[in-house]
Every structure is written in structure tokens, then in C-alpha cells.
């Protein structure tokens, strides 16, 4: 047990960080309150730094999880992108309130601030993602997943002044509960099918079943339901319906978070569940594979098609986020090593570039109000070339224009798909990518090419930290390919199964 706790050091660091943030947010000193973001960043950075020391060879030898190395990769990048996400929300919380306090128009009241709890929840949610990596049985997995989800419900609702955000939070929560129920039912069936919760034991049971001619129906139904439940986390069809509403309703920084952290968690969980049954030379068991196939196709097409008609930038990016889950499912279907590696690499690339897009939106405001309509970013290049360029670069990367980072991610996924013989699936992905060009180009065109409209004239960059985050992730989108080789090497190492 002590060995397993050793691997939780990053999570523990974040836990301490969360507590620190929660307290710091309630301090009377404005400087400390504003410094909560830095505290969160610092803890995330420490968690990052700790990882090479945690995952040493000798400790790994004692690990008893299914994919012992995956934690190193996921935790590191979750924390790293977590820093970007914290920056994205920098200055967003309590903006008006703090402003009023600074001017002396209001006095500080612990009940009216939310900065501290926001950061605490954020760190907790990231810690949840990290915990998934260490799951060795279904219960742990479920708890970790809920640790990821529950803070996000609050985060969506944390914009208390916004009715849209409240509505979004409600939807997110209710539907999240439904999906969790679905997943839990699936887990229960899995237990029924295998008689155990422990992954390593389940693997053996499933292997035995497969050798005898196929996984039992209970097992199949259980897996399917669990996967569908997880589809909610990654916003894959048909569980994607909440995503546009929620992504639109939440503030941009929160949406950036939603689009990455729960998605990573869901993806990881799906990979783990699939690892339980394993990929043989024909891939996953037919029913699972077909289900994932249908889900992937629906997700790619519905996501990209849905984005076409949108007028809200966040909603459009929400649909785009749905579509990206579809692409990633290709990697899951393709299976290890290349497919899973591709998914892991893609998660990082997607996290970085997608954050940039939302961060650009987060840094903008009109008279202190959030901007959301596409028209608001029209002619952005005239007011802030930096923000406009960042948005364009991130859209280009999401679209997969070479040589930006996003292209390489897609290349890996397509290569994995083709190498798994999923030609039709890849062709559909190709068509979906082509469709996505429409709306990404629209965003690029609006930000870099269009002229200012009367409505968009008042929009300007008011927040510094989100802009820095946007620029940083745009730089990652451009310069990322330089570290692609080592990133891929890390991902390859992450999916190495322990020697039997």
C-alpha cells in the first residue's frame, strides 16, 4: 500500500495546493487573494517537477496497475496544461468585485468571493485525472472519475451572475448524473461477468473468455454501458448533446477546462476498459469495436456538421471539441501501440491548442462582459494582433494544417487507423476534417481578415493572463512539432504493459 501511495505524491501535492488555494481565496489581503492563481500554478509546477522523481524504475517495478507507466505521461502533461488552464482563468474570477473593492466601493466578504474555491476545485479535478492513472480496480476508477466531474459542475456554475451559466451547470449536472448511473451500471455488470473489480484479474478472465470463443454477453453489455457513460465525459455521440449548451453557457476559461480535463479522464478510462478486453489481431471484440466505430463516426460527423451553423464562438468550439473526441476514438479502435500512443499524443496537442482558442476568447471583453458571438471577434487583428494571431494559429492547429501541431496529431491517428485496417473510418475522418475547414476558416477569417463591425468595435483585450496563455499555447502549436519525437517516445513508454 505504501508503494501505491508513493505514486500519489503528485495528487497529494495538488490536494495540498487545493487546500491552500481555498484558504488563500478567503484571506482579507487583496494581494494574496489575487495571488491564488499563482499558488495554483506553483503547485501544479511542483507536481510536474515531482513526477520524474516519483516514476523511477525501481518504484515502477512495484506497480500493480494495468498500465503502470501511463501515469508519468498523463500526470505530467495534465499538470502542465493545467498551468495553462489556470492562466486562462487568471483575473476572471471576482473581476468586478475585486475592482469594486480596490476602488473602495465594496468591502471584502468571504461569502461573495469564489476565486479560491475555483482554483481549489480546478486542482482537485486535475488530481482526479491523475488518480485515474493509478486505478487498479473499477471502484477506484469510478471514484477518480467522479473526482474529476464533481468539481467541474461547480466550476460551470461559479459564474453566479450569469443565468446562462447556471442553466448550463444544471444541465451538466443532471445529465452527468444520468451518465454516471449508466457507467456504474456497466461497472456492475462487469463485476457480474468477471466476479472481480481488480483490473489485472479481469484481464485474465476476459482473456480466458475470449480464448473460449468470446466475451460473455454480460461482459459485453457492461463494457458497452460503461463506455457510453464515459462518452459523456469525452462528449462523444450520442452522449454529446449537453456539450454545446454547457460549453456555451460556461465562461470561456471553464469551457477550456471542460474541453480538456474531463475529456482526458474519459479517454483514459475508455483506454483502460478497452485494455481489459484487449486488442487481438482483429482488434477489439466485434461488438465493442462496432459500437466504438459507430460512436466515432457519429461524433466526428455530428460535431463538425453541428459547428457549421453556429453564431456563438464558444458553442462552435464546443462542437469542434466533440469532433475531436471522434478523431481520438479512431486511435482507441486501432489499439496499441500506435493507436493509444496517438490518442495520448493527440490529447496533449489538443489540450494545448484548444486552450489557446478558449484563452483568446477569455481575454476579450466588451465593457467587462464576456464576448461570445462570432461577430465580436470580427476584425480582432486591428485591436489585438496578438490575440487574433493566437486564435488563428490555434484554429489552424485544430484544423490540422501542416506543419502545426494539430496536423501531427491527426497524422498519427490516421496512420494508426489505417494501420489497423480501418480505411473507411479514416476516410470518414478525412471528410469530417474537410468539413471542419469551413468553420475553422471562418474563425480565422473573422479574426485576421474581416473588418471591424459596429458591434465588435467595443471588444478589446482586457485580461493579461489569458492572453499570455493564448500566446503560449499558440507558440506550442507552432513549435510543438520540434518536440514531437520525444513526446511520442514518452507516449510509447506510457503504454508499455508490465512484463508478465
Amino acid at each position, binding site marked *: 500500500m505504501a508503494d501505491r501511495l508513493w505514486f500519489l505524491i503528485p495528487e497529494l501535492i495538488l490536494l495540498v495546493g487545493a487546500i491552500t488555494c481555498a484558504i488563500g481565496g478567503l484571506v482579507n489581503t487583496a494581494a494574496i487573494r489575487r495571488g491564488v492563481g499563482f499558488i495554483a500554478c506553483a503547485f501544479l509546477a511542483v507536481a510536474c517537477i515531482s513526477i520524474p522523481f516519483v516514476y523511477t524504475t525501481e518504484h515502477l517495478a512495484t506497480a500493480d496497475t494495468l498500465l503502470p507507466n501511463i501515469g508519468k505521461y498523463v500526470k505530467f502533461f495534465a499538470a502542465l496544461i493545467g498551468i495553462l488552464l489556470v492562466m486562462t482563468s487568471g483575473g476572471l474570477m471576482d473581476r468586478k468585485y475585486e475592482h469594486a473593492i480596490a476602488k473602495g466601493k465594496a468591502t471584502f466578504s468571504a461569502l461573495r468571493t469564489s476565486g479560491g474555491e475555483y482554483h481549489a476545485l480546478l486542482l482537485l479535478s486535475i488530481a482526479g485525472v491523475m488518480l485515474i492513472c493509478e486505478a487498479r480496480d473499477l471502484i477506484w476508477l469510478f471514484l477518480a472519475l467522479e473526482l474529476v466531474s464533481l468539481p467541474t459542475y461547480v466550476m460551470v456554475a461559479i459564474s453566479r451572475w450569469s443565468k446562462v451559466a447556471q442553466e448550463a451547470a*444544471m*444541465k451538466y449536472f*443532471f*445529465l452527468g448524473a*444520468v*451518465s454516471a448511473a*449508466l457507467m456504474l451500471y456497466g461497472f456492475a455488470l462487469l463485476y457480474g461477468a468477471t466476479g472481480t473489480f481488480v483490473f489485472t484479474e479481469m484481464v485474465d478472465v476476459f482473456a480466458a473468455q475470449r480464448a473460449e470463443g468470446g466475451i460473455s*454477453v454480460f461482459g*459485453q*453489455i457492461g463494457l*458497452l*454501458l460503461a463506455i*457510453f457513460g464515459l*462518452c*459523456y465525459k469525452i462528449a462523444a*455521440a*450520442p*452522449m454529446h*448533446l*449537453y456539450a*454545446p*449548451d454547457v460549453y456555451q453557457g460556461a465562461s470561456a476559461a471553464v469551457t477550456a477546462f471542460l474541453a480538456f480535463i474531463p475529456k482526458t479522464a474519459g479517454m483514459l478510462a475508455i483506454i483502460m476498459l478497452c485494455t481489459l478486453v484487449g486488442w487481438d489481431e482483429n482488434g477489439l471484440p*466485434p*461488438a*465493442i469495436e*462496432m*459500437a466504438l466505430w*459507430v*460512436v466515432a463516426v457519429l461524433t466526428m*460527423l*455530428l460535431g*463538425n*456538421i*453541428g*459547428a*457549421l*451553423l453556429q453564431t456563438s464562438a464558444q458553442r462552435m468550439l464546443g462542437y469542434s471539441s466533440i469532433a475531436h473526441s471522434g478523431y481520438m476514438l479512431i486511435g482507441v479502435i486501432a489499439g496499441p501501440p500506435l493507436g493509444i500512443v496517438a490518442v495520448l499524443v493527440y490529447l496533449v496537442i489538443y489540450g494545448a491548442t484548444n486552450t489557446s482558442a478558449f484563452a483568446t476568447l477569455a481575454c476579450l471583453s466588451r465593457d467587462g462582459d464576456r464576448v461570445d458571438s462570432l461577430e465580436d471577434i470580427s476584425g480582432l487583428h486591428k485591436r489585438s494582433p496578438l490575440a487574433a494571431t493566437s486564435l488563428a494559429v490555434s484554429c489552424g492547429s485544430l484544423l490540422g494544417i501542416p506543419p502545426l501541431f494539430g496536423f501531427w496529431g491527426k497524422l498519427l491517428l490516421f496512420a494508426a487507423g489505417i494501420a489497423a485496417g480501418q480505411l473507411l473510418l479514416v476516410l470518414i475522418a478525412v471528410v469530417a476534417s474537410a*468539413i471542419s475547414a*469551413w468553420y475553422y476558416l471562418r474563425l480565422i477569417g473573422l479574426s485576421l481578415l474581416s473588418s471591424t463591425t459596429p458591434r465588435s468595435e467595443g471588444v478589446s483585450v482586457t485580461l493579461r493572463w489569458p492572453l499570455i496563455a493564448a500566446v503560449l499555447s499558440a507558440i506550442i502549436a507552432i513549435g510543438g512539432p520540434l518536440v514531437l519525437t520525444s513526446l511520442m517516445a514518452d507516449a510509447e513508454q506510457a503504454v508499455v504493459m508490465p512484463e508478465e
Partner: protein
Amino acid sequence: MIEMISIFSSLLAMPAVPPAEVLSASDLSWAGFIVWMPLLSLVLCGLCAAFKVQSKAPAIITIVCLGTSFLLTLLLWNSYTQPETIHLFDWLQVHWDDGSFVANFALYVDSLTLLWMLFVTGLGTMIAVYASEYMEHDVGKGYARFFAGISVFLFAMTCLVMGDNLLMLYLGWEGVGFASYWLIGYFYQKPSAVAAAKKAFIVNRIGDVGLALAIYFIWSTFGTVQYDEITTVLRSESYDASFGGWTVHAIPYLLMLAAFGKSAQLPLYVWLPDAMEGPTPVSALIHAATMVTAGVYLIIRTYPLFMLDEYALPTVAWVGGLTAFLAATIGMAQYDIKRIMAYSTISQLGYMFLGLGVITSYGAAYHVFTHAFFKAVLFLTCGAIMHGFAGQLDLRRISGLRKMKGWKIVSYTMLIGCLCLAGFPFTSGYFSKDAILAEAFVTQGPGFKFLGWLAIFTAGLTAYYTFRVWFRVCAGPVHFEPGDELHGDDPKSFRPHAPRFAINFVLITISLGALLAALPYFVPNETETIQGGWVAEMVYDSPAYAGVPQVAHAAIDSHDVGHGTIEQTVGHGDILGMDPHKAMYYISAIVGFIGIAIALFFHLLNRGAADKLRSKLLSSRLTRWLPTAMENKWYVDEVYIALIRSPLWILGKFFSLFDKYIIDGAFVNGIAALPRAGARWFSPLHNGAVQSYAISMIGGAVLIALLMLYMPEIVSYLQSLSSQQTEVEQAMLLMGGMP
């Protein structure tokens, strides 16, 4: 009389010139300057244009350069002993393992080349001299451009004639077409000139395509495009009648297409009359004397290839004969003297092709030679008149020119030209035309006799319309009206500008040449086996002809009723029981006299009669079509527009709309609209209501899960369904019942 057939047979016995000897020519490299001098002239004229030289320098440059070319040609002719290739530089060479396409920039000098080059450079120089005065109103404006155009033309023409391969010929071929475009469109602000230039280029392009395809065929059949090598192949042992399959039969027809385009034969003659929009020296040089004879040159050059198909030469003969007749009828009804000359050119070119078709390349070449001189004279006199009378060309508005001061030389040189053209006895045109006419009766072929009679009749028409011009313009009472190019002169006090020294000098020189062109007929040639004088020797000494006995043999053996045979007793035709060569002396003289006499009556003695006759013909419903059709050029242009131009244009318009609305609109934008349509289709799903989301999500998940779980069962059920169906169908089929 030239005994064509005996020459043929004698050629059979002649030893062929081995190609190895042909290629040994290092001492003649200076001949390249015949080609380079016009190019030099072009460059210098271009510089003059660029620096806006305000003097006659371009003319002088051109005259000097072209004169040098002519002198060099004379020198070359003088030192000529046997066909030689003069390599200038490698142009296009593609080699691979065991094949190659070689077309060097090299000159091939044989007697045929020299014959052509002599009058091309000679007349070119003279016409440049003429133009130096004719174009002087444009000094400093388009003067340099004009002479640059002349230089381009001469350069291209020398390439065409002197090139040692078909690709060089093609270079010259398109080059002269381009020069023609340049010069016809000289008055580029005149829409009609621009249109005419365009038409010339495009119609010629149609022919060029034929030539290009012919080159492909020749190369794919013979593996070379060099004349001497083609000859070698044809002469080789491996050659037999079936050589090359069907492709060899296509070659002559494609070459014909090219030749007919360039030489303005049916049905591609429409560009030549319009080409008269160019300055007159251009018409004289390009559209009468030299360029339009390129088609004749091409066919003579590739004559052996025409032997490869049974019907090739008869086709040439028929097209030539019909063109000669048709153009003559149109010429009779025109009033613009330059246009009359243009139609007469088409008609005379028709004679040349008739000559080629009835296997007298000698006659054709001789006619080219004489025609070059007398038609140049005629055009240049027309030009002088046009120049002097402010663009007036209507033969009804000028009369009695020979009685005006300063116009004597013009009138009488024109008379010389007319006499030659009409085939007046003992002029050059008389001998050259007779050679062709007689051969139409000598050689046996499909309808050749008819063509012969048609040509004789046409000769009468020619005499008539030629002298119609002369009697109207030069004879009769003095009367004139100025044209519309007054350049500020008052039309009432208008005085004709009589030509000065340069024009008169050129007119005299060339008309002398036209007269003297009869002489070569009597000059004995060195080779005793050939009869027919110097020109005959020049033609028959070309390996393109002499080196292909086997082709000729094959062509003759392959069909018995062909175009003449070697054996005189079998093949030599007759006319009214007489030897055609002798009979033609009398017949053509008589026909010519009749034609001149009719012209004399209608256009000098009783000028009103012609108009009366015309109105009489017009008034009768039965005969109205004849003058109308003749005056309207038999509506060939209109037919072209109706059958080709308009449909293509409409097609273009249709395609343009098709492109916009079907391909781009329906096909491309339609596909692009699909995702958006899909988006509209799916958008009600996102209605914002939590409960419906939940139902969709759970429902969808369960649906997919069930579908997947029972997939094998579903598939097998579907399969069983379809197999049942086919069983049922088969059963029904077996019963012979309903489908």
C-alpha cells in the same frame, strides 16, 4: 515538251545519292547567314522601334540585310553541286535507348531550296525597296515595326524553305503565319485589319494542326523528320507497299490540310481576300509571291509521301482545279482591284495544286516561279495606285491611268503583269500554265480530263477578269475619284501622287523579271536526261524527288488506274487526239484571246454593257443567283460562320454557363452545401431541454448497444432474407412467370 513520264523512268535508273555524302558540308557554313541576315535586320529594326528612330533607317537596314541574303543565295546557287546539309545548331533533340527525335536547326540545300530561295530573297529585297517609299508616311511611327515585320517574315520563310527537317519547316510555317498576322494587322486601329489578321492566323492554325499531326505520323512511321532520312527509309530495301500500315495513308491528307490552309485553297481560302487589309507591299510579298506558295513547296518537298496513297494526288488535283475555277468566278465579280488580285492569286494557286495533283511538280514549281514575279508586279501596281489615289481601289472610279502624267510606268508594268497572268502567248505565265494544263490531259486519273477542261475554261475567265482591271483602270478616258485616306487633302482639289523613283524602279525590275521568267524554259539544263529547261532541273534535282524511285514504283504498282504510269504507251493521254503538250499551245492561246476580247468589249469599248448584263442577270429570277453569289464570294464565309464559328461560340457560352451553374453551382457547391443541410437537419436535436437530452442520450446508447450486441444475428437474418428472396425469384423464373 517535257516528257514527264520518261523523266520518271529515267529517274528510276539513276543511282541515288547516298546520304553520307549529303552530310559532308563544312565549307558551306556561311550559308547560315542567309537565315541570320533577316534576323539581324529584325533585331536592328526592333532597336529602331525601341529608340523611336525618326528616319528611314529601318528600311535601309532591311534592304541591306535582305540584299545580302539574296546575294548569298546567288553565291550558294553558283557553288551548288549536290544536296548538302548545313548544321547550324542543335534545336530539339530527344534521345533514349534506341530511338530519338532529332530536329536540328540545320539547312538543307538542294536545287529546290535554291529555286525557292532565289525568288523569296530576291523579291523580298525588291519589295522592301518599294516599301521604303510606299510606307514613308509612317516614318517614325510604324515604319520600324513594318520593316521588322518584313524581316520576321523573311526569316521565317528562309527557315521554312531551307530547313532540313519538318520541324524547321513547321517553325517557318508558323513563323510566316505570325508575320502575316503582324503585317495584316499593321493598321491596328482599324478593326477590319485586326479582324483580318486574326482570321489569317486562326485559319492558318487549322492547317498548322494538320502539319503537326503529319509530322507525328511521319516520325512515328519513319522514325525521323529529316527529309534526307525519310528518303533513305523510302529507298531502303525493307520498304514495301504495306509500309507503316494505315498511318502512311493519313500523312498526305494531313499535309494537304496544312498546304491548303497556307496556300488558301478550298475550303480554307477565306482568309486571303481579307488579308488585303495589310499594306500593299505585304500583300505583294506575302500574300501573292512567297508565303502562299509555301503549300506548294511543302507538297513538292514531301512529294514521295503523296505517292503513298492512291487518292492523295487526285484529291490535290481536284481541290486545286475547283479552287482555281471558284476563285476566278468570284474575281470576275469584284470591284476592288486588290481583291480581284487576291482572288486571282487563289485561283493561280489552284492551278499550282492542280499541277501537283496531275504529277507535274515541275509545272507547279515553274508556275510558282513565274507567278511570284507577275503577281508581285500586279500587286505593286495596285499599291502604287492606292498610294497615289488616297486609297482608291474601286475599278469603277479610276480610268485612263496610262494617260495621266507620271503613271506610264505603272500602267505598262501592270500590262505586263496582266499579260503574264492572262497567259498571253510567249509570256512567262503562258509557258508555266500550259505545262500544268497539258499534264492534266497527259496523266490519267479520276476526272483529270474534266479538270483539264475546267482549267482551260478558267484560263479564259482569268484572261477576262485580268484585263477587266487593266481596261477599266489604265485604258479609257481619264477620270478619277480619290479614296478616303486623304490625310488632310481636300477631296475637290485632289491630285494623284505619282510614284517616285523607288516604286518605279522596283516595278520595272520586277516586270522585267516577269518577262524574263519565260527564259528559263528555254535555257538548256546540264543534265541531259531532263527536258524542260532550268526550272525543271531545279525541281528534279531534289533528292526529295529523285531519291524515291521505289516509292514511285510502289505507288504505281499498287494500283493500275492511277496517276500516270511509267510506260508512255499506256499512260500518256491526249486531248482531241493531239499530244496535249503541243495542243495546249494553241488552245490556251485561243482561250486567252477570247477572254481578253470579251474584257475589251465590256470594259473598254462598251463599258455600259457590263452593267446592263449584270442588271439583266439580276432582274431574271432564274439567273439572279449567279451574280449575287459571285459578288458575295459564294457565301463561304457565311457558311463558316453558320456551321463552325457560331455553333462553337454558342457551345462556349453554354459551357460557360454549364461551368457556372452545373459544375460549380450544382456539383461543387451542392456537395459543399450538404454538411450545412445536415446541420439544419440535426439542429432540432439540440433543443436545450434536459429531459429530451437525457432521453436521446440514453436511448441512443441503448440502441447502439443493442444493435452491436445483436449484430451477428441481424446480419444473418438479413442474409437469410435476401437468399430467400433470390430463391423465390429463381423459382418464379423457372416457372416462366412474372419477374
